[in-house]
């Protein structure tokens, strides 16, 4: 679901796909690898967007299903068996950034959003 990149892009715009189309998030430089940001979605919902060490963007729902708080963007990322995840800053459950599955409780998951890095000039489609 995620664009594969050879090198981190420093130009362009990170975008995520909502049911209303691609939404511009910010420039890749606006994100620190390993750290997330929160994005306000057109429908009032929230997404959490992360960059890994290799510069790949990921987006999942920002709401922590265990507490209801919209805080996943403020968790720390990591990787387990080569798969990237974020740990909730509240009670530390981990969520796979590619699938949204909770690694510590199989019955829980969060939504995932497709992401891409659009070249500088491209406008939202």
């Amino acid at each position, binding site marked *: 679901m995620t664009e594969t990149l050879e090198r981190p892009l420093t130009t362009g715009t990170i975008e995520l796909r909502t049911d209303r189309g691609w939404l511009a998030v910010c420039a890749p430089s606006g994100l620190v690898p*390993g750290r997330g940001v929160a994005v306000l979605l057109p429908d009032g919902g929230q997404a959490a967007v992360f960059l890994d060490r290799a510069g790949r963007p990921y987006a999942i729902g920002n709401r922590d299903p265990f507490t209801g708080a919209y805080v996943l963007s403020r968790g720390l990322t*990591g990787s387990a068996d080569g798969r990237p995840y974020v740990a909730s800053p509240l009670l530390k459950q981990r969520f796979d950034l590619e699938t949204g599955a909770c690694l510590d409780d199989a019955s829980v998951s969060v939504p995932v959003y497709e992401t891409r890095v659009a070249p500088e000039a491209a406008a939202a489609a």
Partner: protein
Amino acid sequence: MTATPTIVLIGHGMVGQRFLEALADRGMTGDAARVVVLCEEPRPAYDRVQLTSYFSGRTPEDLSLVEADFIEKHGIELRLGDPAETVDRATRTVTARSGFTVQYDQLVLATGSYPFVPPVPGKDSAGCFVYRTIEDLLEIEEYAKNVSSGSVVGGGLLGLEAAGALKGLGLDTHVVEFAPRLMPVQVDDGGGEALRRTIEDMGVTVHTGVGGKEITAGEDGAVTGMELSDGSRIDTDMVIFSAGVRPRDQLARECGLEVGERGGIKVDEQCRTATDPAVFAIGECALAVDGRVYGLVAPGYEMAETAASAIAAQETAGFTGADTSTKLKLLGVDVASFGDAHGNAEGCLDVVYADSRSGVYKKLVIGQDGTLLGGVLVGDAEAYGTLRPLTGSVPPVSPEQLVLPAGAGGPVSIGPSALPDEAVICNCHNVTKGTIRAAVTEHSCGTVPEVKKCTKAGTGCGSCVKALTTLVNDELELNGITVDKGLCGCFPHTRAELYEIVRTLRLTSYEDLLASHGREEAKDGDGCEVCKPAIGSIIASLAPTLGASGYVLDGEQAALQDTNDHFLANLQRNGSYSIVPRIPGGEITPEKLIVIGEVARDFGLYTKITGGQRIDMFGARVDQLPRIWARLVDAGFESGHAYGKALRTVKSCVGQTWCRYGVQDSVRMAIDLELRYRGLRSPHKLKSAVSGCARECAEARGKDFGVIATSNGWNLYVGGNGGADPRHADLLAQDLSDAELVRLIDRFLMFYIRTADRLERTSAWLERIEGGLDHVRDVVVHDSLGLCDELEALMADHVAHYRDEWAETLDDPERLARFVSFVNAPDAPDPSVRFVPERDQMKPDLDLLAGPTLPVRTLEGTVAR
């Protein structure tokens, strides 16, 4: 005999309690027998051996030997404060003071000893005490508050402990010993001389070869001084008699049981009294078959086991005599004697090493065939844990090598691994090396605390813990039980090892550290939420020394911090943050109080006073934090680091300036300490407090480092904790000047930061670290590792480079840009952070957050992996 027999125990002291445990182990409690205990003291059995530790912070409850539900679980009838007054052996009836009577099938006397008070005139004056029970100590402590000097009659093991206690209470202290040397029973002349110097260096005045002739008292009947046998006189306000103990055999005499010429209830090998097979005597009140009365706890425990076996009609080896090895438990003084310390065996030889400058004296007594028979260690009792168990065997290296200091004679330290399996490692509980090894191999104990719990080893006087730790670790290694000590799935090293790596290789980047020292499988990964903040903290605490930026949110560092550190505020359950400005020592001007009130009002924050004497403001959104802090910084506030694993507060009582009891300016000291250590990143949060007198209103003993004023300066306590796992802090050093205090705290904190595990509070660290408090004291007070200069330099770097994180953040637009709720809508507030009214303020609106399901979880409960 009735269907269920009745067993009556008189005396619930150390040995009595052990006897009850031994009965329970043998299934002789509950339905099997009615067990009645008459206890003279107002509290159940406690650890008399550790009595003096009351003065370094252990409470009477800490000293208890009886586990919470022991008495109930075993259906034991324990009558506190109701001593036995008469025993009628004809009708087998015991009558207690309350009038309670009970008929026994078996009677066990465990009445212990009483302190001997020499018949000198004036011995009953106000201010004369003995040193045996918790009540004695409470009285001594109370009396000492109003006087300035004290004397101890008796320079033996207990007398010196008592003298240490008086010194600790801030009194000018004297010890009077009739024999020509201190601890005459345990040490020889050479050892006595070395010991005397050490004791005098502590500031205690020693008088040997003289006795107390008369206690003089003033008109009010209170002690004013003591006349000595050589005609001299000591001006002193109180006297503690510690001139030996006598068996409490009065009750036994009165009911016609045979006692020894010099006291002690005569018993046989099974601890049955010589006179009456239905009556047993154990512990210090018993005269054993070898004609001795043992004044130590280990032989008493053995007797307890023996008597319990006899009553349960089990085979027993019987009690025929015991070892009288002892180690003095006195702050800063190392004295031990074991086996035939005086060389009484025929044809034996002494091997002696003495260095009068450093006060070290070591003597080993060697038999004709080369067996180690005993010895005396003064000034350096390090080897006690190994030498005592070796007694009775031929040591694997020459005796000279055993006494020479390291470096002077080759392989000095033979570890406990050289001992045979039968060697007794823990004398107090008679635990052999074999038992300890079995705890690891058969009972799969993987840590020292587990082995302690399983075998009881190390839970008596504690002198064997060092040897025990080595043995357990060796055994774990031998069995290939490698406990993976790695910090997490990314690093195979402990936090302490990573600290050393970062410090010596001067690494300032997490990525470099992961690439060079991470586990193979994690090197290319993204790290994890465990190691990132831990390494972020290590780099932050070493930053000034490494020449890295001290600002925790610079560059890559920003990605390592937990959200609290990332936004320099504390995340709350609905995603809002709380704010705690620093209020050093809890002292605040009315103007600043007003600013806090105005800020809270203007931003609609919920306010609450914290336990650390500051004010917490809750309910701020991320995007409000900079504006809130701009006003606080403007008014002269700075970050309180409530969000960080760092120094929190140094709480204080109002101290000498206002309080009529205060003896030092505790507020000033608290402010000085808080300003010195503010911003110091550490493995876990650090809390502190300063009390202006021994009343301890600031609760300093519940802190990581606590300071209590004395009339001579400051006492420093370390390793305290409140919360779920409370622990009283231990005394590290006493009567320090301001400069000494600060220097010692510098060293202590840096040593902790260097060696602790991630999220390990000082209390857990002290319990875990090999050698415990003694080791830490050696390192930070006596500089045994030669580290102190470096530790002080690290702290000096920290102090010199401290800058307020919030002021720095506000000065930098790029850093401020991070404080938005949404990256794509910087001006939009977070709609999920809402509040509802509660008691005139507000609270998080959780209904808004609750989705279809909200599983309940405790905040502490991190997810098990």
